[in-house]
C-alpha cells in the first residue's frame, strides 16, 4: 500500500517535471531570448536617434539658394561632357579640337590605337616606334576598364539617354619647346575636355618632341566598347570626401570648392 502510493507520487512528480521542462524549453527560453534581442534592438535605436538628433542640431539644412546652386552645378557637369552619337564622332571632335590649336606646331599626330602610328612625319614616327611598348602600357593604364577615377562624380540617372564613355588617346608632336609647352598647357581647354594622363618629352636641340596619352570622357547615345562601368557607389572610387568632414555640415561654399581656371604660362624670360 505504502509502496503503491509512493510509486504514484513519484510518477506524478516526474510528469510535473516533464511538463515544466517542456514549458521551459519550448516556450520560456525562446521568449526570454527574444526579450533580450528586443532589449538590445531598443537600446541601439535609442542611441541612433539620440546621435542623429545631436548631429541634426549642428547641421545646416539646405535652403532654396543652396538647392538652386546644387541643381545648376549638376547641369553644368552634364553640359561639360560632349554628346556624340558614336565613338567615331568623338574622334572627329578631338581632331578638329586639336587642329585648331596647332599654332607654331608643324608636326602633330593623333594616335587612336596604341600600336598604330601612321601616317605621320618619318622622324616622329620612327621615334614613336622605339617606344611602342611604353606607349601601349600607358594606353592600357588609361583604359576605363582598368582605371577611371571619375565614376563617383557622375550620378546614375536612368532618364539619361546617353551613356558615359571614356577613351584613351595618344598625341605626338615635335615643335620648339615654348610652342610645345603652350600646346600642352592648352591641351584641355577645348570642347573635347581631354585630360593628360602621361607625358614623355625629349629635347632635341632647340626643339623638343613629345608624346602624351590622354583620356577623354563623353556621352555616347549609340553602342560603344568604351562605356564606363557605373557600378561604384558614392563612397567608392579615387575621389573620396570624408563623410564626417565639417565641410558637409555647412551649406556649400563655392569659394571653398576647387577653382576652375585656365592659366597661361609665364613668358619665356619670366622669373616665375
Amino acid at each position: 500500500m505504502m509502496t503503491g502510493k509512493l510509486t504514484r507520487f513519484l510518477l506524478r512528480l516526474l510528469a510535473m517535471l516533464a511538463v515544466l521542462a517542456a514549458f521551459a524549453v519550448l516556450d520560456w527560453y525562446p521568449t526570454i531570448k527574444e526579450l533580450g534581442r528586443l532589449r538590445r534592438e531598443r537600446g541601439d535605436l535609442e542611441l541612433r536617434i539620440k546621435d542623429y538628433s545631436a548631429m541634426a542640431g549642428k547641421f545646416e539644412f539646405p535652403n532654396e539658394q543652396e538647392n538652386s546652386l546644387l541643381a545648376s552645378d549638376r547641369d553644368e557637369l552634364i553640359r561639360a561632357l560632349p554628346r556624340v552619337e558614336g565613338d567615331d564622332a568623338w574622334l572627329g571632335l578631338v581632331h578638329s579640337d586639336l587642329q585648331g590649336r596647332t599654332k607654331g606646331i608643324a608636326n602633330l599626330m593623333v594616335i587612336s590605337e596604341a600600336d598604330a602610328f601612321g601616317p605621320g612625319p618619318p622622324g616622329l614616327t620612327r621615334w614613336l616606334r622605339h617606344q611602342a611598348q611604353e606607349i601601349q602600357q600607358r594606353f592600357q593604364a588609361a583604359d576605363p576598364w582598368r582605371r577611371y577615377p571619375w565614376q563617383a562624380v557622375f550620378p546614375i540617372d536612368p532618364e539619361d539617354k546617353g551613356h558615359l564613355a571614356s577613351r584613351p588617346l595618344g598625341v605626338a608632336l615635335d615643335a620648339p619647346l615654348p610652342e610645345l609647352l603652350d600646346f600642352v598647357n592648352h591641351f584641355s581647354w577645348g570642347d573635347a575636355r581631354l585630360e593628360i594622363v602621361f607625358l614623355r618629352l625629349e629635347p632635341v636641340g632647340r626643339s623638343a618632341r613629345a608624346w602624351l596619352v590622354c583620356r577623354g570622357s563623353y556621352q555616347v547615345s549609340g553602342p560603344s566598347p568604351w562605356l564606363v562601368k557605373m557600378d561604384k557607389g558614392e563612397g567608392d572610387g579615387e575621389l573620396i570626401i570624408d563623410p564626417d568632414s565639417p565641410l558637409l555640415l555647412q551649406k556649400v561654399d563655392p569659394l571653398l570648392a576647387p577653382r576652375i581656371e585656365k592659366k597661361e604660362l609665364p613668358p619665356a624670360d619670366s622669373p616665375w
Partner: protein
Amino acid sequence: MTKQRERPARWRRLWPLVLLAVVSLLLHAAKWHRLLEVQGLFDQWATLAATRPVEETKVRRARFYKSRFYLGYPASASYATADLVRRIADISQPPVRLLAIQIDLGLHDLGFELTIEVAAAGPKAVRRKLAFFLKRLRDLPRVFQANPSPASLAAEGSGGRVFIINGRAELS
C-alpha cells in the same frame, strides 16, 4: 457532497498547470509590449530621417565638391605639367643636360622622372654638379620630392654621367 470533494481534488491536480500557463502569459505579454516599443522607436527614426535628411544632403554636397574638382582638374593638370617641364628645362643648363622627362599624373599630385647628363671632369665634380642641380630642383615650387635613382648611377653618356631622378610635385 461527492462533487464538492471532487472539485478541490481536481484543483490540486491542475494548479501547477495553471501556474505554468500564467508565467507563459506574462512572458508573452512582456515580449509583445517590448515589440510595440521597438516598432515605435523604429517609426520615430524613419520619420526623423525623412524630415531631416542629413545623409542625403551630405551626399549632394559631396557630389558638388567632387564635380567642381572634376571640372577644374584637366586644365589644372595640363598647366602643372607644362609649368613643371618649363621650370626643369630652365634649370637644366650646362653642365647639366636634360635628356628626357616623363610625367605621370595623379589626382592630387604628379610623379616625374628626369634623365639628365652631367658633364664634368672627375667623379667629385660630377657629384657636386648633381647635388647643385638637385637642390635647385627641390626648390622649384610644388616639388616636394626629388631623388636620384640608385640604379642609374652607373650609366655613362657621351662625355658625362647619366642619372635618373624620380620625384613628385603637387598639382596646385
